[in-house]
């Protein structure tokens, strides 16, 4: 799983029927010190996350199939948690 921030939402009326039920979010993966790290991706939302939230994103197709209960959902990224805080070793401690 990765730490990411929700930066937007996607409106899409025309999509694969297996994806029809899900809200799509734009998530920006984050590195240490909260900086963007890598390209944004589109994930479905399972926890009612909003723009600006720090979230936990799983990026694996089999996990997406288990979470949705659909064995043919063409999807890899799912927002599975809203992060309250992260404690980590900063600076020289690392």
């Amino acid at each position: 799983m990765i730490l990411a921030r929700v930066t937007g939402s996607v409106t899409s009326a025309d999509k694969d029927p297996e994806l029809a039920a899900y809200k799509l979010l734009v998530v920006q993966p984050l590195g240490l010190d909260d900086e963007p790290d890598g390209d944004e991706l589109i994930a479905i939302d399972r926890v009612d996350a909003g723009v600006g939230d720090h979230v936990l994103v799983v990026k694996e197709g089999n996990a997406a199939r288990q979470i949705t209960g659909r064995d043919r959902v063409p999807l890899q990224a799912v927002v599975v948690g809203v992060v309250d805080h992260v404690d980590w070793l900063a600076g020289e401690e690392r």
Partner: protein
Amino acid sequence: MHFARVLGPLVATAKIPSLSGYRLSWIEPTDARGRPLGDPLVAVDPGQYGRGEWVYFVTSREASLPLRDPFCAVDAAIVGKVDRVDLEGGTQIVAAEDPTGARAAAGGVHAVADVAVAGPDGAP
């Protein structure tokens, strides 16, 4: 899933049987604002989206799931069309309604990558 712009169809007459009947499209990944991002690739396009349309695609094993044969040998599939992206700060990116119109003919691929960007008050 990732954003992309459809550059155009790719025609391959001889292909493996499980791909027969499916359109293949040459696509260019974009960011959430519709700006080009990275190298173009070919994706199977079950929804038959047109040139210039703003779409999103899934890669690797999941790309075969929208097809008849869920073990088909593909590694990228377009799974939907973007109408609009709402970003932080009220910025809205709206997909062009007629990406294959006159603008596309005049300016080639990158002209159709234009998207309308509206500020919080709706002004461009």
